[in-house]
């Protein structure tokens, strides 16, 4: 077993264990953290596939931003854990059905024709890139030439989604007090302070 094999099996088993943990752990915060671990070890496997751009972006976007917000929401919820556990058995058949379905699709795609599940010969024939091969550059070149239209459309859809999400949640509350920093900076002495002559002789 080479070091690459060892690393692959280590990360793969962590991925699977963590994915099981997402489903099986009682506490939703633990589930979210297991999902973070799943993403992380998946990123490590992608890194071994010489897809360093995808791996690092997975960590950056999903682990660094999406899951933080996810965790945020889950931490704030007051969840009745006993109630959440109730449906486990009744949902199990549907869950298993989908798991088998996904597995079948994956075996079909990875295994080529779907007969040889562990098609190791195909893996050995995979192109090993040179050390100076840049996955980032390769993706960039293809994304901005061949797939530029699809890429722009996807970006546009995301922009619309952002605007929609903001306009749905934006509400102007009239009763809250807030300060405008620009006005705070603009303040002059004369706006706040008035000097009046006093007749009070006692002070003198």
């Amino acid at each position, binding site marked *: 077993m080479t070091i690459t094999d060892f690393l692959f099996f280590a990360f793969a088993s962590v991925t699977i264990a963590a994915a099981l943990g997402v489903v099986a752990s009682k506490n939703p915060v*633990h589930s979210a953290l297991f999902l*973070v671990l799943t993403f992380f070890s998946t990123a490590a496997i992608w890194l071994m596939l010489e897809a360093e751009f995808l791996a690092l972006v997975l960590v*950056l976007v999903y682990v660094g931003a999406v899951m933080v*917000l996810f965790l*945020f929401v889950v*931490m704030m919820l007051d969840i009745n854990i006993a109630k959440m556990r109730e449906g486990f058995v009744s949902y199990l058949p549907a869950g298993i059905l989908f798991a088998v379905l996904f597995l079948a699709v994956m075996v079909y795609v990875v295994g080529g024709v779907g007969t040889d599940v562990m098609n190791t010969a195909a893996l050995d024939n995979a192109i090993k890139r040179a050390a*100076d091969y840049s*996955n980032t550059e390769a993706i960039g070149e293809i994304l901005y030439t061949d797939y530029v239209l699809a890429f722009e459309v996807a970006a546009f859809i995301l922009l619309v989604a952002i605007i929609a999400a903001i306009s749905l949640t934006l509400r102007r509350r009239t009763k809250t007090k807030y300060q405008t920093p620009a006005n705070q900076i603009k303040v002059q002495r004369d706006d706040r302070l008035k000097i009046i002559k006093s007749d009070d002789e006692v002070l003198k």
Partner: protein
Amino acid sequence: MIDNLLIFALDIWNWFPSGWQTFLLILGKIVLILAPLMLCVAYITYAERKIIGYMQIRIGPNRVGFRGWLQPIADAMKLMFKEVIIPAKSDKYLFLIAPVLSIMPALAAWAVIPFDRGVVLTDVNAGLLYVLALTSVGVYGVIIAGWASNSKYAILSSLRVGAQIIAYEIAMGFALVGVLMASGSLNMSDIVEGQAGGLAHWYIWPLLPMFVVYFLSGVAETNRAPFDVAEGESEIVAGFHVEYSGMAFAVFFLAEYANIILISALTALLFLGGWLSPFEGWLGAEHWLGASSFFWFFAKACIFAFLFLWFRATFPRYRYDQIMRLGWKVFIPVTIVWLFVEAVMVVAEIGPWAV
């Protein structure tokens, strides 16, 4: 005698299989980076207390050792021998994992930092992305610490940190995109080499707004004053680490200062030409001031580390809504506008980059 010892040592070294030799070599390099880093972390705490002391016309620590030089060692000893108290209603595993999660990214990011030409642990192509990805993971330590402590102040703090770090990370990412456009590479060494040619060729000039945004976002990311609402002594005691004691607390402390050094080093590398000498074009490489060396990298990083301490002694804490306003409504628009400006400059071939 010494020759014999050397031969003996070489024999032991050759006894290892070649795979193990590589492994041990990498391990040795990691130790060579981390040991001085930890020393720097210890002495930046001393520097902070001294510098802020002088700024406030005090002396600062001056009892342990000559002029207080042994103070950080004494602090470390004290923290090591204190009991780590785990609150009864806390989530014990997460409570203990949290400090580790906060220091791990701060140390792991040093794997791609070049200290001098060719002096780097791994010279990967996606170095900049790697640093960005790892620094974004650091927030978990704080959030998990706040939640696992099962304490009101701690959870308040972790919520503040979560929102703050996400807000500033976007601006930070955009600022790095600016550097990426200027250098045309994600490799840290290439980014530094792209700034060769002396003071006038550094990216700080064409990317001045990016530089300001990057460094200030770095201050906000490390939860330092004036963005330290996460700790906010006067509001929520100590924030996310209010329940931590002894070594568990010390690890958070180490992570904060390791992050300060990391941000200082990154700012020096990305905008101030890292190990390159500012007098490159004028003095020539023969003169010691004109030669590029680790000294310049260290000096530049020290300037930024000093700024961190200076900020703390100077500015009052931002109010939370002001932090959010600065992050979302000032920094992000500034970076986006400058990305457009930079794109126009690249197309028109104005500026130091030749694409």
